[in-house]
């Protein structure tokens, strides 16, 4: 009963005209920033910081949250239409979203992405209301050994993603791990593979790798076609309504419902993140699917699952910040800083001392998800027309977008060189049919996995038993083993069935 009262209080505050105005503004800004490669929620919130100082605390927090999940809605637009992910969380949306657009199903792809994001966000918000505090407590039990096991589980996903080309997938994975070792080693302060370049000291930003391999790689591949006189015809000329068919819906709803909790739980962990959530969701669905061969070739459920998961993740990530005062990601760290300037101390006491603020924000998350869905569907109707541009004109534009995107990461031209290198790597990988997903996953996970491995050993004075110190470790380990074995097991079972 108290819960409902609190929610009512929250809605009564969140529904004031000023708060609604800022929420819509934040959602639109977030969506637009999310769409642009290289820019993401962190940049959006940092840009908004000076403005928030003049706001009331609840308005500031409502606006920042709106930017945050708005970016999750927007991030996949360019994944689907151009094969250029807006940020890490949108990588998995390329796998099936882009093939869908190429097959003339861009409307359905954009629609399911907004719908899945909406449902994922909404369910996660309900979960936030009900289980925030116990879940945040549970997340604290994750230390370096648990994170290491989680990363192992995430990496094992590549076995499923690249089942068709195991050896090539392995090469791709190793390449990704190599890229992730560049930069300062936090545990010893030693510089690795920086070749005397200061710009490399903080490592290679994975957004550069993603935009290079996916965006530029795709452009380079298509240059072949354009050089031989193609590329005059646009992919699509006529556009229908941004909506999905009953069949699409039937295929997508179960994956959305299944992967939302995955995204939510990964989000609550301070050391994971939306990229891992989305890739895990994609992998899970591929393994659970009766027709895994459809994945990567425009399966709508392969797009719905990561979209639901990354939005659920962004809601989950707010939990440790709001209930414990512990930021779990770059974005929430910036938000925490902003709140402290406003004189608000997030933490267990937030819900007691500033119940009005806390509940107003929760209420605004319900409303914000609706706003984002409403904003995104008509916006998608406009964006989809990019496919009416002939590749000869479109691809140079993608190149420009890619360069602008990577420049905004560090405002340095070193990223340009890296971008071109990764573009060429991406081209070569496509040409020789080496799967790119393992590389991306390894770049995202690699550094954290290595660091957590060594951190765990430092904590245990070098004893390896630390990796099996509790149930969490064992469960994650079992999941990893199962994840690697399942593709083989399932094809073996199928073969046996066929034999009988």
């Amino acid at each position, binding site marked *: 009963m108290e819960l409902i009262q609190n929610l009512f209080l929250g809605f009564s505050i969140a529904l004031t005209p000023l708060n609604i105005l800022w929420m819509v503004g934040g959602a639109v800004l977030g969506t637009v920033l999310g769409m642009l490669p290289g820019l993401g929620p*962190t*940049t959006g*919130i*940092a*840009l908004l*910081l*000076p403005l928030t*100082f003049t706001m009331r605390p609840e308005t500031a927090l409502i606006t920042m949250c709106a930017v945050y999940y708005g970016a999750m809605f927007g991030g996949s637009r360019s994944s689907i239409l151009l094969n250029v992910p807006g940020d890490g969380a949108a990588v998995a949306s390329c796998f099936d979203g882009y093939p869908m657009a190429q097959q003339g199903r861009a409307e359905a792809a954009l629609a399911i992405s907004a719908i899945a994001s909406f449902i994922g966000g909404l369910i996660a918000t309900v979960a936030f209301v009900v289980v925030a505090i116990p879940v945040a407590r549970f*997340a*604290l*039990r*994750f*230390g*370096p050994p648990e994170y290491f096991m989680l990363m192992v589980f995430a990496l094992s996903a590549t076995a499923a993603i690249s089942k068709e080309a195991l050896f090539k997938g392995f090469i791709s994975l190793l390449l990704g791990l190599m890229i992730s070792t560049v930069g*300062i*080693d*936090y*545990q*010893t*302060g030693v*510089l690795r593979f920086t070749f005397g370049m*200061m*710009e490399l*000291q*903080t490592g290679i930003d994975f957004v550069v790798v993603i935009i290079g391999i996916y965006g530029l790689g795709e452009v380079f591949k298509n240059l072949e076609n354009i050089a031989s006189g193609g590329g005059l015809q646009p992919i699509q000329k006529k556009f229908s309504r941004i909506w999905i068919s009953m069949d699409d819906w039937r295929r997508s709803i179960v994956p959305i419902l299944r992967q939302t909790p995955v995204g939510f739980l990964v989000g609550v962990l*301070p*050391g994971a993140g939306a990229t891992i959530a989305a890739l895990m969701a994609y992998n899970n669905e591929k393994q659970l699917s009766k027709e895994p061969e459809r994945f990567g070739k425009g399966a709508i459920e392969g797009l719905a699952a990561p979209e639901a998961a990354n939005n659920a993740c962004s809601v989950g990530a707010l939990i*440790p910040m709001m209930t*414990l*005062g*512990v*930021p*779990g*990601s770059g974005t929430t760290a*910036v938000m925490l*800083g902003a709140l*402290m*300037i406003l*004189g608000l*101390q*997030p*933490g*267990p*006491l937030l819900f007691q001392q500033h119940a009005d603020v806390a509940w107003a924000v929760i209420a605004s998350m319900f409303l914000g998800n609706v706003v984002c869905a409403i904003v995104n569907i008509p916006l998608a109707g406009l964006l989809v027309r990019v496919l009416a541009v002939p590749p000869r004109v479109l691809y140079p534009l993608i190149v420009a977008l890619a360069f602008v995107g990577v420049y905004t990461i*560090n*405002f*340095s031209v070193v990223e340009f060189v890296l971008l071109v290198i990764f573009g060429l790597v991406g081209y070569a990988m496509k040409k020789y049919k080496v799967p790119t997903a393992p590389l991306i996953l390894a770049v995202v996970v690699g550094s954290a996995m290595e*660091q957590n491995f060594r*951190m765990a050993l*430092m*904590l245990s*004075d070098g004893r390896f038993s630390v990796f099996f110190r509790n149930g969490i470790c064992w469960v994650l380990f079992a999941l990893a083993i199962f994840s690697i074995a399942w593709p083989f097991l399932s094809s073996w079972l199928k073969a046996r069935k066929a034999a009988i």
Partner: protein
Amino acid sequence: MKRKSSSLLAFGLLAALFALVFAASALAADFPSRPFEFIAPGGAGGGWDTTIRMTAKVLGETGIIGQPMPVFNKPGGGGGVGLAYMQKKKGDPYSVIVYSPPLILINLTGQTNLSFKDVTPLAMLINDFGAFAVPKDSPYRTIEDVMEALKKDPKSVKTGGNSAFGSMDHIQFLVAAKAAGVKDIKNIPYISFQEGPMAALMGGHIDLLSTGMAETVGPLEAGEIRVLALTSSTRVDADVLREVPTLKESGIDATFINWRGLFGAPGMPEQEKAYMVEALKKMTETPEWNDVCAKNGWVKAFMPADEFAAFLEETNGTYKELLTEIGLFKAQ
């Protein structure tokens, strides 16, 4: 004919030279006459970024400096990229950059061969202090307890922080440990968490967290952690932190100041430098600046150029000694 043109040329050159000299003296007289370039050597939203943006805001709003002061971010190399950028601005009085202790550390650990001597110190503006926190159920009640345990076995307390090995969070604890008489500071385990060091402490994964004092306020208020000591020289007059003793009160003769200050380009002309120092001094005396400091939890600590330079020299020596002891010092 030919002769005439060459003399004309000579006259023209002379005139141009006069114009230049005149322009230069005019520049010094009505400095600043064009917009500044304020630089944050880190990303948007970080500590450096906030400091310089707030400075620009107060300088502008109070009318102390009449020219625009847009802020640009030059992140990378732990501040090294910004330092390299300033070298291109040699002698330019319009480029101003913000730094804190990493300016000294990245040079000593060999991340860059540039040092604090390659920029012109203008003024220290604010101080922040380190805090040493333990989980609420920790057996350590005081910082002396921790040091006693470390003296017996330097591996017995697992410490952690946000920054890399040999960087700020690590160094501030080593300053304390060394002053307390711990012998093998090299062997004290320090684990760098790039994400969520506070979560690692609250979850009991590390025994002691070395961090900034602002980060500890929330969990401390909620009773999730205990803060054993602050690295300031006197008690900090703010909320819950008022109860926390300094290292000195705990019998450890050490302080660690996380200073933030502004620097000009190398070879900045004296006159303009004096102007900037004066402007910054004026700024720190305004109620607007007091307000900004209060909101951000910064301790006001104005220190003008020469004093600041001497302070940097001294700190450089202390850090160098510590980094040599843990084997991270790299001579340039």
